[in-house]
């Protein structure tokens, strides 16, 4: 697991107040929304802010969100390609 994957999991746990969860509890391929981690639309907004604040990525097309936030792996791939900080 890369540093980015771990960092991302730690940020998500902190930002979304996932109390009692550890980074190891989130699988890299696990779905973040729906039946996986069970995040909802408010969490999606929190993740959009997280991308911009921590990695300088501003999402211009809201439809991208569904693919980007599918799992930790898809988020990490997207961040590696588009990060500005």
């Amino acid at each position, binding site marked *: 697991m890369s540093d980015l994957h771990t960092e991302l999991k730690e940020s998500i746990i902190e930002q979304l107040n996932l109390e009692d969860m550890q980074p190891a509890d989130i699988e890299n391929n696990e779905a973040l929304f729906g039946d996986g981690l069970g995040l909802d639309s*408010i969490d999606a907004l929190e993740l959009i802010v997280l991308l911009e604040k921590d990695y300088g990525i501003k999402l211009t097309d809201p439809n991208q969100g569904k693919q980007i936030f599918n799992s930790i792996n898809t988020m990490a791939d997207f961040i590696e390609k588009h990060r500005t900080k």
Partner: protein
Amino acid sequence: MYINGMSNISAQPDDFLTSAEIIDIQGNILSAVVRPYRELIKPMLLRRMSKAVKMGIYTAVKSLSRSGLECPDAILVGTGQGCMQDTEKFMQQIEESKEQLLTPTSFIQSTHNTVSGQIALFLKCNGYNMTYTQNSVSFESCLLDAQMQLELDEDIQNVLIGAVDETSEKFTGFQKLDGQIKAETILNKELFPSSSPGSIISESAAFFSISREKTPRSLANCVGSKIINEIQSSEIEEKVVEFLSEFDLKPEQMDAVVLGNNGDHRFDDYYQILQQGIFNNILQLNYKSLTGENNSISAIGCALAVSVLQHQKIPKKFRANSKSASKFRRILIYNQYLGRNHGFILLERP
């Protein structure tokens, strides 16, 4: 209207209304004891809730279940300050991000009516939902509205009513600036003899399940309540007599009075005048040395009175004088804060 179930959270343990044990607390800002919220609330919901919301939902659900009810017809919540923790978090984010990149959760949860809304969502209650933010008479405002709803709307049979306030690190600290919190650190048992301004500020929640009709589970009958925003201390006895006369009662017909002394030497004279005057021969109870002061604390005073009517006994720690009563049938609760917003509640044994 009849109180059929209640639950409260304060700086004291769960059973403090009936227990003889005295928990001494040092500090001028008291946190409420954390309850096992996970027993009732799913972790995915709990993670977004501030302390006020957790305390509100927990006590609301407990009070309803103790009355044998799942969902009320109306929800009324009083809060003097609202969700302070999320408001503070949200405002800190505004400052830190220079008004950019604000996350939604704190903002959504920062409104004053978050608690009543979250209780309604939790209970799936689509009925009348109202929040009163009226300083120290927020709870009494809810009682008055409950009375009116029961009188005006025959479809409303059961009302959930309560009050909740939380502290937050910075905002509560501001109360020091205008002398609401004592400058010197004080042990709670030293509060009443204190001769300095201010009190100890705290968090609390108390909810009551109320019905129009008496039930086998009824603990107390709320005969009436009244709010008077401005009273001079010289008028307080007259106002109490006026309130009681609305029910053809006299001060000497009270079996006990629950008074809101908070150790602020500037304003405790309202209580002291009553203690040395019309209630001199009546059993007097105090509770704020145990719970601290906040805008919802009169709901805890009300819970104490309900507990006395239910159990017919009073732990020594609440007694402010040596008077006694053979039976507890009728109790007056009186509270004010900073000499303003005076609330009167009259309870009777059902």
